């Protein structure tokens, strides 16, 4: 990244904001290419692996092998993750396709989702907390260093 900035001829220099925009756009393009490859793989070779998982595995594998440098996709990935909520909007809008269903059962569905989500959160939070304490105690008994207190 730094190198290209230095070696670029003056005639090609854009404002930093524009250059950053083009770079992010190109990186998003590269991530979309990985996604398309993953979709093709999951359609033709690995029907039980969802394309999302295949794509993450491909990207991680390429980075572990050193074939894909983190800097080549980092800005694009950060942008995609930051704006991800926008991509969910059309999915929610799909409720207008089922007016009768959500008119009749909407409140009951919402009730189930709220209560169940709260239960999942409580159970997961306490399960991880408990397992982490056990892991810490176990590591200490092993004589190992249990310094890795996260958070």
């Amino acid at each position: 990244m730094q190198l290209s900035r230095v070696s670029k001829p003056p005639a090609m220099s854009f404002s930093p904001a524009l250059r950053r925009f083009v770079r992010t756009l190109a990186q998003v393009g590269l991530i979309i290419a990985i996604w398309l490859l993953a979709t093709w793989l999951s359609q033709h070779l690995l029907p039980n692996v969802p394309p999302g998982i295949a794509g993450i595995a491909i990207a991680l594998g390429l980075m572990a092998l050193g074939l894909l440098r983190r800097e080549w996709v980092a800005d694009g990935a950060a942008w995609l993750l930051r704006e991800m909520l926008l991509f969910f909007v059309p999915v929610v809008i799909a409720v207008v396709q089922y007016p009768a269903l959500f008119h009749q059962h909407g409140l009951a569905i919402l009730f189930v989702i709220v209560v169940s989500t709260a239960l999942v959160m409580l159970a997961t939070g306490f399960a991880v907390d408990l397992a982490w304490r056990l892991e810490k105690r176990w590591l200490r008994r092993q004589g190992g260093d249990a310094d890795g207190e996260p958070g």
Partner: protein
Amino acid sequence: MASPVDLLIGLFWLVLTVLLYAAMRHVHQRRPHFLLSPMIVVPAILIATLLLLRVPYASYASQSHWLSAMLGPATVAFAIPIFDYRQIMRRHWLPLSFGVVVGMSVAVVSTVWLCRLVGLPEAIERSMAVRSISTPFAIIAAPQVGGQADIAAICVVITGIVGMLLGEWLLGWLRLDTVLARGALFGTAAHAVGTATAHRRDPEEGVISSLTMILSGVLMVLLAPLLAPLI
């Protein structure tokens, strides 16, 4: 097939969605009240508009579907934070896997049980059972337990929004000490919407959340064929 007018109408909805989102994100950053969250206001305005003007969903989605198409590449983008924080996964795989297994079991059992309690039809129950995992996974897992992929997808996103609000509220008085527990809470219960929330709260929490979200999705897709006869 699609006339220029249809194309323009489709583009209008796409542009309106993006502009509303950008405007509400700006407002939400200045006044971070949950009711001003873009995930609440934008769908509410759009749904009300479509219903009032009697616009069919196909017309809205003709170009806006490009936005939901970006969910795929956005899932792939999680590879970067996972790569950056791979040491956390290597070190804490045990609590995280344990949390995911507990979380997914509670999700399926509580959903089925609550649906029966309030008397929801079996078709909805089956579409809801897989709802706490991410959309791409839910679309695969839902038909395997006899659910409907698009209803599952809607319930997935509603779950995400509910989880986003509930999570922040619960963590306000739960006092979970570790970033592991806080991140896993978002990842298992509220998939990518929860992960986006966790990421905004703290990047490390976001990473834990994305790891547990992926583990949950994989676990559910693998377990769905086995669960089907039990539901």
